[in-house]
């Protein structure tokens, strides 16, 4: 035995549980136990838990209402291992060992909720009450208090969901729903040789056959489904249970939410699947509707079908004295089963006649035809029912069946147009959707000629609802019939307005149980037919999906994986302080703190420094049309470059703005290497490739991104030459044969090495590129020869002293080459290049463009990056640009800065005021090169 409501193992109950496996858990601090196979809801009911939470708005006591994904009440706070779900649906969660479950939305526990007083003020807080009441002076003042009172679960900000996996699958047919209709559709396709996926949101296949008595092919229903499951597995059908199809998207894409139960590996309890199917069969079945009567929200009111499911599958008897209230034949079976299980049953059938009444009476069931429930009696839970006829019945459970609603949400996701079927008072599939078949009771019919049987039920009985009493329509959002009346009275009479004004159907259950009843009340209130009222749109997801599950692996470090240098370990040995530059992890400096930067600058200016420049792009452009492609891509002409030489070039976007800069090396007449900025490699490759495919012959020019194959070490400083010589590079190093902006192929450790004289520091510099796995050896050898390491921050200072730009930092999306003083190609080139025409628009030619200048701060305090030079205009300060780079120059012993300033080139020599977060600075606009303007040090 596990729980007082559990029936012992004699009898045919509990097909879904394994009594040999006890599972311990706790609810609101109280230790409880269940069996393997239980859902959380089943285990709670077995333990006699009736009150599972408090309602959203009025803090009314609530109990478990259904046994499936349509559950409006049983939303619990669930912790298990590393997982925390503040809004878990107890009816779908498989019970697992050690789960800690708490009732949500109650101050204290659900049993003793100190906010329960709210319900006594219910008449003062109808629908739309916030909009009318909390407007003055500002809603914000009241928001905190309202949020504390309303809402469901609370997110624990300290919890970290482990990233779950996302899975992808392609199949011929995806069958949604593992009931008899779904099983038949899956088996037929599998036998025709198709690859089939069958999903069901419960632990086992069979659908209603697992709890309803039926005979198919001369077998008892449950036996039939077990036999067919063996057939399905033999035919190779991929069966996923505990899996809900949450959305249908374009081109037959199905999104599935799998609940984590061994052997699946759903790290946070859920796993999202994206499935593409040739065709989809929707066999999602139908769900039961509640009945409308006073206090129909009390714990102890449950859907009749759910009561049967808990009895048959989990061996849980939800009540001893049961009133089964119904509008159709389907609930009679529930009464028979409950009676057989020892409960005392009264059937209250709103219809004047049922063919099943006589059999029920013969079985000892009290059947009251032509009567219905007026009111549920009891304080915090059901103690009885008062009928319309005036009779009062004692009861601890009211099982209700207000008819059946086909589950066509997924059909609507696929843009199916539903139609209203008056016979069953529900929406059924209307238009055909290519690639989607709806079968079984999801279609709204259960007989061969598509006429619904007497088990479906018709239009809701609004007798009790019209009496201006508290009759619940939407349990999760606490919407009553009075709220709908009020909305109609205030002319929110369209179905879309009603939904938003009352929040009917807007809760996490999306109105699955309340939709039809709400429409019927609205129709009656506005004097229209239900079909004329219209419906709101069903949108995915069908059941809530946690954000962590959607984000899956893109969490934490995996959101933007960091790229690393080949020689990272060597830099760590050197004591490098690492920082992320874009997605690259690079040494910022070597030493304990940022004071190392000035020291490193000194090595480069006065001795010899070594810098890991491996992240620079090395894009090879090869072929007879390579020069023509690069001429088109670069603003600077490339085709005139001699083999063995390098040229610095700007590449523009078609808008004329500077896209990137870099150095192009011509290795051979038809072989170039483009060294673009570190963070721009992927974009530059895409840019080259786009124009290659658009304008060039693919057989005559080829692009190969070799950036990761080569490591580059830059040796820089007045004494760099003898360090490079000691590396024994197998190439002439004298300035005649290897001048600035030239390159030679040499060797390092027996492998090819490229030695290029190109400088980003303003000093004599050699960039040596070797195969990436030799990076560490090359670095160690350069260090052994006396070069001192420098990091990215020192390089940033050295290049700022020289006025060398970082594209994207010292330029923005409007900066054109003539704004940084590179006018030549604009004036001279007549052939086409990317961005050419944009350089001659009125916008490009106007005065007042922001131009690159140097800024010499007055005093010793650097002007912060982002400070605005300002001018007085009409008694107001106006920004005329901003500072893009700024630092203390160790070489000059004063601050240096670069900035973009309106008409800056014409303002050279002017002293401007700079504003930064309320602090004033002053500085003079100067040429952007602060050190060695003639470039003599490059050759020193």
């Amino acid at each position, binding site marked *: 035995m596990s729980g007082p409501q559990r029936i012992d193992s004699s009898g045919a109950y509990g097909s879904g549980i394994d009594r040999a496996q006890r599972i311990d858990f706790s609810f609101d601090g109280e230790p409880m136990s269940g069996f393997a196979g239980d859902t959380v809801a089943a285990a709670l009911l077995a333990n006699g838990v009736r009150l599972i939470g408090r309602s959203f708005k009025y803090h009314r006591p609530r109990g478990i209402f259904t046994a499936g994904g349509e559950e409006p009440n049983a939303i619990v706070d669930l912790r298990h291992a590393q997982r925390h779900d503040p809004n878990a649906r107890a009816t779908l969660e498989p019970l697992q060992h050690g789960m800690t479950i708490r009732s949500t939305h109650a101050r204290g526990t659900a049993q003793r909720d100190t906010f329960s007083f709210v319900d006594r003020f219910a008449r003062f807080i109808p629908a739309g009450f916030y909009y009318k009441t909390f407007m003055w002076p500002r809603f914000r003042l009241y928001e905190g208090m309202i949020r504390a009172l309303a809402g469901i679960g609370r997110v624990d900000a300290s919890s970290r969901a482990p990233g779950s996996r996302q899975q992808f699958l392609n199949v011929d047919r995806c069958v949604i729903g593992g009931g008899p209709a779904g099983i038949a559709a899956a088996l037929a396709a599998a036998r025709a040789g198709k690859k089939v996926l069958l999903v069901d949101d419960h632990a086992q296949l069979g659908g209603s056959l697992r709890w309803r008595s039926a005979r198919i092919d001369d077998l008892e229903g449950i036996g039939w489904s077990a036999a067919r499951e063996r057939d399905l597995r033999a035919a190779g059908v991929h069966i996923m249970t505990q899996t809900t199809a949450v959305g249908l998207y374009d081109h037959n894409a199905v999104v599935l939410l799998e609940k984590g139960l061994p052997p699946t590996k759903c790290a946070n309890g859920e796993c999202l699947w994206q499935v593409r199917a040739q065709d989809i069969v929707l066999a999602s079945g139908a769900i039961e509707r509640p009945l409308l009567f006073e206090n129909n929200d009390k714990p102890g009111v449950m859907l009749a079908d759910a009561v049967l499911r808990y009895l048959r599958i989990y061996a849980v008897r939800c009540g001893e004295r049961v009133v089964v209230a119904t509008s159709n034949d389907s609930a009679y079976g529930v009464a028979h089963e409950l009676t057989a299980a020892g409960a005392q049953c009264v059937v209250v059938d709103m219809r004047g006649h049922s063919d099943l009444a006589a059999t029920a009476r013969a079985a000892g069931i009290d059947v009251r035809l032509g009567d219905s429930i007026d009111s549920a009696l009891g304080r915090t839970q059901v103690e009885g029912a008062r009928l319309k006829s005036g009779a009062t019945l004692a009861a601890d459970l009211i099982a209700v069946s207000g008819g059946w609603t086909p589950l066509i949400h997924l059909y609507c996701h696929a843009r199916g147009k539903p139609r209203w079927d008056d016979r069953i008072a529900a929406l059924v599939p209307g238009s055909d959707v290519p690639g989607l078949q709806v079968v079984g009771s999801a279609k709204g019919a259960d007989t061969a000629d598509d006429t619904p049987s007497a088990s479906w039920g018709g239009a809701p009985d609004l007798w009790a609802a019209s009496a201006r009493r508290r009759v619940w329509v939407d349990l999760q959002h606490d919407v009553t019939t009075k709220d709908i009346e009020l909305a109609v009275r205030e002319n929110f009479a369209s179905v879309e307005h009603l939904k938003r004004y009352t929040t009917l159907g807007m809760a996490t259950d999306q109105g699955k149980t309340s939709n039809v009843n709400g429409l019927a009340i609205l129709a009656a209130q506005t004097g229209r037919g239900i079909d004329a009222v219209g419906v709101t749109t069903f949108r995915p997801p069908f059941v809530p999906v946690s954000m962590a599950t959607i984000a899956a692996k893109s969490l934490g470090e995996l959101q933007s994986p960091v790229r690393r240098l080949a020689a990272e370990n060597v830099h760590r040995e050197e004591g490098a302080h690492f920082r992320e530059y874009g997605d690259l992890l690079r040494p910022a400096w070597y030493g304990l703190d940022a004071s190392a930067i000035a020291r490193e600058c000194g090595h480069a200016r006065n001795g010899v420094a070594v810098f890991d420049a491996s992240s620079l792009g090395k894009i090879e452009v090869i072929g007879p049309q390579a020069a023509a492609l690069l001429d088109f891509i670069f603003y600077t002409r490339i085709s005139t470059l001699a083999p063995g030489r390098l040229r610095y070039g700007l590449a523009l976007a078609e808008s004329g703005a500077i896209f990137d800069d870099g150095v192009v090396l011509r290795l051979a007449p038809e072989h170039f290497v483009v060294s673009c900025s570190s963070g721009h490699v992927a974009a530059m490759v895409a840019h080259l490739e*786009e124009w290659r495919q658009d304008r060039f012959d693919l057989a005559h020019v080829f692009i190969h991104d070799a950036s990761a194959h080569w490591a580059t070490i830059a040796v820089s400083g007045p004494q760099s030459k003898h360090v490079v010589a000691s590396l024994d590079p197998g190439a002439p190093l004298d300035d005649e044969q290897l001048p600035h902006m030239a390159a030679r192929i040499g060797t390092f450790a027996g492998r090819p090495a490229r030695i290029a004289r190109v400088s980003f520091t303003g000093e004599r510099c050699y960039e040596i590129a070797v195969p990436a796995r030799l990076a560490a050896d090359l670095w160690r050898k350069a260090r052994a020869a006396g070069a001192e390491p420098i990091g990215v921050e020192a390089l940033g200072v050295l290049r700022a002293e020289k006025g060398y730009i970082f594209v994207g930092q010292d330029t923005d999306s409007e900066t054109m080459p003539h704004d940084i003083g590179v006018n030549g190609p604009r004036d001279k080139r*007549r052939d086409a290049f990317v961005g050419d025409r944009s350089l001659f628009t009125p916008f490009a030619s106007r005065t007042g463009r922001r131009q690159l200048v140097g800024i010499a701060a007055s005093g010793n305090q650097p002007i912060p990056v982002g400070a605005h030079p300002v001018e007085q205009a009409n008694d107001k300060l106006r920004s005329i640009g901003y500072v893009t780079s700024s630092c203390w120059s160790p070489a000059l012993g004063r601050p240096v800065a670069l900035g973009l300033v309106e008409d800056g080139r014409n303002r050279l020599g002017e002293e401007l005021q700079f504003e930064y977060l309320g602090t004033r600075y002053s500085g003079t606009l100067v040429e952007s090169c602060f050190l060695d303007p003639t470039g003599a040090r490059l050759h020193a």
Partner: protein
Amino acid sequence: MQKFPCPFCGPRADREFRYGGDAGKLRPPRDCTDAEWARYRYQRANGKGVTHELWLHADGCGRWIEIERDTMTHEVFATRSLVP
């Protein structure tokens, strides 16, 4: 969640592709008017119904392709390589 048939790789999920604007636009020569250049650079048809668009199969073959499809129904009629 659409499915595009790449002429080189076969049917692929849309997340592998990157949108690249309207197909059939020709890059005007340098001596075009400002208005012609602006039309080429900035004006998008943003068509409802059948459209011809450029897409890059970025996480696949890396080729630019033209897709003829309906922006209302998401039906894909034809795809072809940009390069004949």
